[in-house]
């Protein structure tokens, strides 16, 4: 072979391989192929499909073959080999026959018997390999070794079935054994790579869908943990609470709750569990159970001296147990006494809430800084008092609001929050919350939410007789 021949040969092989790549990609994405390779459904229809497609491969390969003297250097056998390896003997034989018979009549350089027979055999043997492996598709290397063996068989047959007596070992090699071997192996490797890629993709798709279903259920479970709107209002006061929660991921670590203690007192709380997503949501579930129990105890035994600080102490002790991963939660608990117009509250490292009066004054109650729940034994929690008049709005929130980021990397910050509260000092709790969230979303300008967000606004007023 001259250098020019070698170059032409390489070009021809690369062209053929490119065709295989494109065709393989398209074929492997048909529904029928997915059925065959993933569900192993080997109906007659599927086998016919494979025979025709890969028989066509074989025919095409001959037209794109490199002609050297009396021999054709082509990727013809690749088609039936693939058909047999993935579809069994019927598919392999079918493709082999289509390719082989075409080869016999296509070129009669003296090798046509050997070549056609090899093509037919390649499909059949591939099909037998399929049966031996019980339908399991060979790995890339296994397939390549198989292809190489068929090529050796091919040349052996050519050597044996000499039709014009002029073949000897050297001319066989010279006739392109090595390039064909290489090209066929490469073609098989490429096809198998594409095919296994597909399998992996479908499997991870399946896994992902299952996960999404579980996440949906998790979200439903968490949503049902949220308190129902206050259906039973106390007799002498009308309470207006509006809340908004949006996790950064499907489920999150921000939560709130409220309990009507008696006719004139409401316990309200907001919390932010460390981390985000499922781990945080799991811990939320735990926090709620514990806090719910604490409130039950208070209702039953300490009704008169209900103290948010004691609830925090109780919750802290509970959360310290069975907490190897050191999850913690910031929490604000407030006990509103509508008769005394007082808010008794305790704060475990949570963002300090705002009280917005109808005349526009906004203030944050003074309090003693304390530790989050779940980190250390015996932190000191104290309760502080502040006034809250009818018509005032108590606004609880989590740092997802103040730490909302825009594409420039700026934070929404307490300043913007203050401004929004000022702008909404005459709004209802619902209007205030909705306007705040709108402001935050406008500020973030489509930047993905990086932390769970929660806001609760509430106000009360005496019911006029």
């Amino acid at each position, binding site marked *: 072979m001259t250098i020019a021949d070698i170059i032409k040969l390489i070009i021809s092989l690369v062209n053929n391989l490119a065709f295989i790549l494109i065709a393989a990609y398209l074929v492997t994405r048909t529904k029928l192929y997915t059925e065959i390779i993933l569900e192993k459904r080997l109906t007659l229809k599927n086998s016919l499909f494979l025979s025709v497609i890969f028989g066509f491969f074989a025919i095409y390969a001959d037209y794109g073959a490199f002609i050297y003297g009396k021999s054709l250097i082509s990727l013809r056998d690749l088609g039936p080999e693939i058909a047999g390896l993935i579809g069994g003997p019927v598919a392999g034989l079918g493709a082999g026959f289509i390719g082989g018979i075409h080869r016999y009549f296509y070129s009669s350089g003296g090798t046509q018997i050997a070549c056609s027979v090899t093509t037919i055999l390649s499909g059949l043997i591939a099909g037998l390999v399929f049966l031996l492996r019980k339908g399991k598709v060979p790995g890339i290397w296994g397939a390549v070794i198989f292809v190489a063996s068929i090529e050796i068989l091919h040349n052996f047959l050519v050597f044996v079935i000499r039709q014009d007596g002029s073949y000897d070992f050297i001319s066989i090699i010279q006739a392109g054994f090595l390039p064909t071997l290489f090209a066929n192996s490469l073609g098989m490797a490429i096809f198998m790579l594409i095919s296994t890629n597909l399998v992996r993709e479908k499997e991870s798709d399946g896994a992902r869908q299952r996960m999404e279903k579980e996440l949906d259920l998790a979200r439903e479970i968490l949503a049902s943990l949220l308190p129902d709107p206050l259906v039973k209002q106390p007799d002498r006061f009308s309470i207006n609470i509006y809340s908004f929660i949006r996790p950064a991921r499907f489920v999150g670590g921000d939560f709130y709750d409220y309990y009507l203690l008696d006719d004139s007192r409401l316990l309200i709380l907001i919390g932010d569990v*460390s*981390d985000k*997503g499922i781990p945080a949501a799991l811990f939320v579930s735990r926090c709620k159970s514990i806090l719910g129990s604490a409130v039950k105890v208070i209702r039953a035994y300490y009704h008169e001296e209900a103290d948010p600080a004691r609830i925090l102490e109780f919750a802290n002790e509970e959360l310290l147990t069975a907490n190897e991963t*050191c999850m*913690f939660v910031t929490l604000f608990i407030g006990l509103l006494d509508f008769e005394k117009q007082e808010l008794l509250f305790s704060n475990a490292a949570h963002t300090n809430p705002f009280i917005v009066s109808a005349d526009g004054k906004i203030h944050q109650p003074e309090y003693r800084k304390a530790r989050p729940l779940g980190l250390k034994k015996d932190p000191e929690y104290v309760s502080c008092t502040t006034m809250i008049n009818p018509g005032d709005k108590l606004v609880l929130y989590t740092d997802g609001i103040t730490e909302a980021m825009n594409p420039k990397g700026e934070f929404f910050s307490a300043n913007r929050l203050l401004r929004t509260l000022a702008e909404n000092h005459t709004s209802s709790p619902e209007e205030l919350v909705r306007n705040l969230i709108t402001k935050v979303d406008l500020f973030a300008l489509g930047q993905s939410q990086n932390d769970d967000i929660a806001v609760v606004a509430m106000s009360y007023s005496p019911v006029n007789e």
Partner: protein
Amino acid sequence: MHVIINQAGKIPVAILKGRMDALTSPDVKNQLLSTINPGLAVLIIDCSMLEYLSSAGIRVFYQIAKAMADWHGELIFCSTTEVVSEIFTMVGMHTDFKIFPHLDEAIALVNEKN
């Protein structure tokens, strides 16, 4: 996020470089765990190159401290940036851990004790 372990005499110093959040914290935890052998008296965490710390990162510190508490080992911090200091304060870490402005001071204190 990279964890670089240096030695200040017998004391391992872990330099945290980058962001410590939900994504990177598990790796940091594993690397720190492999640094501490039972009986290790002190591990110093150098926060000079710690750009950001989320609650996930805080948890890792408490988990390491918990592990070391088994043999009365101590976790010490130094060189926190402003951002990280704020988070430390919010959680109250200064009541649970010694935090030094500079690595030298941390090492000096440890050597003094011994």
